[in-house]
C-alpha cells in the first residue's frame, strides 16, 4: 500500500470514527483505536498515540462551545483535574510496563462498559440538593440554565468522585482515550451533578487529562506524525459533523446499530488480546 493510499484510508476511517463517536456519545478515541487495530492492523501503541492526539483536538473544540453556554462548571472541572491528571501519569507510565495484548483486553472491557452506559443515557434520577459540608467548603456548586430560569446544584460525595476520577485519568493515560463514560459516572452518578453539567464538564476536562499523558507518549515514540496526522484531522472533522447531526435528528435507532458495530470491534480486540493475536 502506498503512503498516499494509506493516509487517505486512515483519514476516511477516522472521519467515520469521529462521526460515530459523537453520534453514539462514546467519544472519538474509543472508536478510532479498535478501527486502527482491527481493520488496519496497526500496533496498539501507535493507535493509542494517534487517538490521544485526536482526543485533545475534539475535546478542546467542543468544550469551547459549552463554556460559553454556561453548562460546564470550571471549579469542579479544575479540582477533579488534579485527580485525572495524576491518574493519567500513572496510566501512561503503565503502558510501557504491560504488554500490548493486555492493553487490548482492558480496552475491550472499557469499550463495552462505555457502550453499555451510552445506551442507558437517561440521567441518574432525582438530584439531592442537601448541603454537603466538604463541597460547600470547596465551593463545588453552581447553577445552570434550564427552561425559564436557572437551577442550583451542590456536589455530593466529593472524595468518592475524586477517586473515580483518578481511575478515569488512569484509563485515559493507559488507553489513549478521553474516558468520558467514567468521568460522567463520577459526576452524574456519584457526585449527583445534573447530567448536562456532568457531560459538558467531563468534555472540558478530557483535553487537560489527555495533555498529561501526551508528554510520555511523545518521548516514547507512540505519536507517529504520518499516522497521527490523518487520524487527528479525520476525527476532528467527523466529530464536528456528528455533533451537528446529533442536534438535528432523531437518531435512536441509528445509535443502536452503530453501538452494536462498535461493540463487535471491542469484542474482537478483547478476544485478540486474550488469545495473543493482536
Amino acid at each position, binding site marked *: 500500500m502506498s503512503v498516499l493510499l494509506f493516509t487517505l484510508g486512515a483519514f476516511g476511517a477516522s472521519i467515520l470514527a469521529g462521526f460515530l463517536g459523537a453520534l453514539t456519545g462514546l467519544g472519538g478515541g474509543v472508536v478510532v483505536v479498535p478501527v486502527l487495530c482491527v481493520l488496519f492492523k*496497526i500496533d496498539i501503541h501507535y493507535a493509542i498515540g494517534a487517538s490521544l492526539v485526536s482526543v485533545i483536538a475534539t475535546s*478542546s473544540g467542543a468544550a469551547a462551545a459549552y463554556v460559553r453556554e454556561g453548562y460546564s462548571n470550571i471549579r469542579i472541572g479544575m479540582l477533579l*483535574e488534579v485527580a485525572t491528571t495524576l491518574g493519567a501519569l500513572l496510566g501512561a507510565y503503565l503502558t510501557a510496563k504491560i504488554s500490548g495484548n493486555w492493553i487490548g483486553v482492558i480496552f475491550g472491557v472499557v469499550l463495552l462498559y462505555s457502550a453499555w452506559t451510552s445506551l442507558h443515557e437517561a440521567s441518574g434520577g432525582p438530584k439531592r440538593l442537601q448541603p454537603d459540608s466538604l463541597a460547600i467548603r470547596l465551593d463545588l456548586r453552581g447553577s445552570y440554565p434550564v427552561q425559564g430560569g436557572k437551577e442550583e446544584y451542590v456536589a455530593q460525595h466529593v472524595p468518592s468522585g475524586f477517586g473515580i476520577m483518578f481511575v478515569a485519568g488512569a484509563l485515559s493515560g493507559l488507553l489513549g482515550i478521553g474516558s468520558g463514560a467514567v468521568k460522567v459516572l463520577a459526576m452524574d452518578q456519584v457526585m449527583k451533578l445534573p447530567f448536562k453539567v456532568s457531560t459538558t464538564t467531563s468534555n472540558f476536562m478530557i483535553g487537560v487529562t489527555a*495533555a498529561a499523558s501526551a508528554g*510520555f507518549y511523545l518521548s516514547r515514540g507512540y505519536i507517529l506524525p504520518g499516522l497521527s496526522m490523518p487520524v487527528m484531522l479525520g476525527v476532528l472533522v467527523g466529530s464536528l459533523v456528528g455533533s451537528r447531526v446529533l442536534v438535528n435528528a432523531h437518531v435512536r435507532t441509528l445509535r443502536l446499530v452503530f453501538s452494536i458495530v462498535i461493540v463487535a470491534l471491542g469484542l474482537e480486540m478483547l478476544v485478540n488480546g486474550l488469545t495473543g493475536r493482536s
Partner: protein
Amino acid sequence: MGRMLQIGVTVAAMVVLLGGVLYLKQFTGPMPDYRRFHGAPGEYGTVHGILAGVSNFDSQCLIELGILLLIATPICRVIFGAVGFSLLRDRLYAAVSVIVLIILLLSFFMRR
C-alpha cells in the same frame, strides 16, 4: 476562555494539515511499518528535536509541531484558569490550577 481553545485547535489543525500536505508531496520510499512497535522515537521524541526538524523544513517535524501546539492548548487553558482565579481573589482555586499545571509540566520533564 472558550475562544482561546477554539483558536488553539484551529491553528494546530492548520499546522498539521500543512505538514501533512508537504509530507505526502515529499515522501518517497516504502510504506513505514506500523504493525509492530519500534520504540525509538528519534527526533520526534523531544520538543528540541521537533523544533530543530522544523527549521530544516522536515514535514514530519512540522506535523509534530502542530501536535505540540495542540497539546499546549489545554495547558494554556489551565494557566488562564490560574490567572482568572487570582484576579477573582479565589486563592483556593488559583492554587488548585497551579497544582494541575505542575502535574502537566511534570509529565514533560519526567522520563519514563
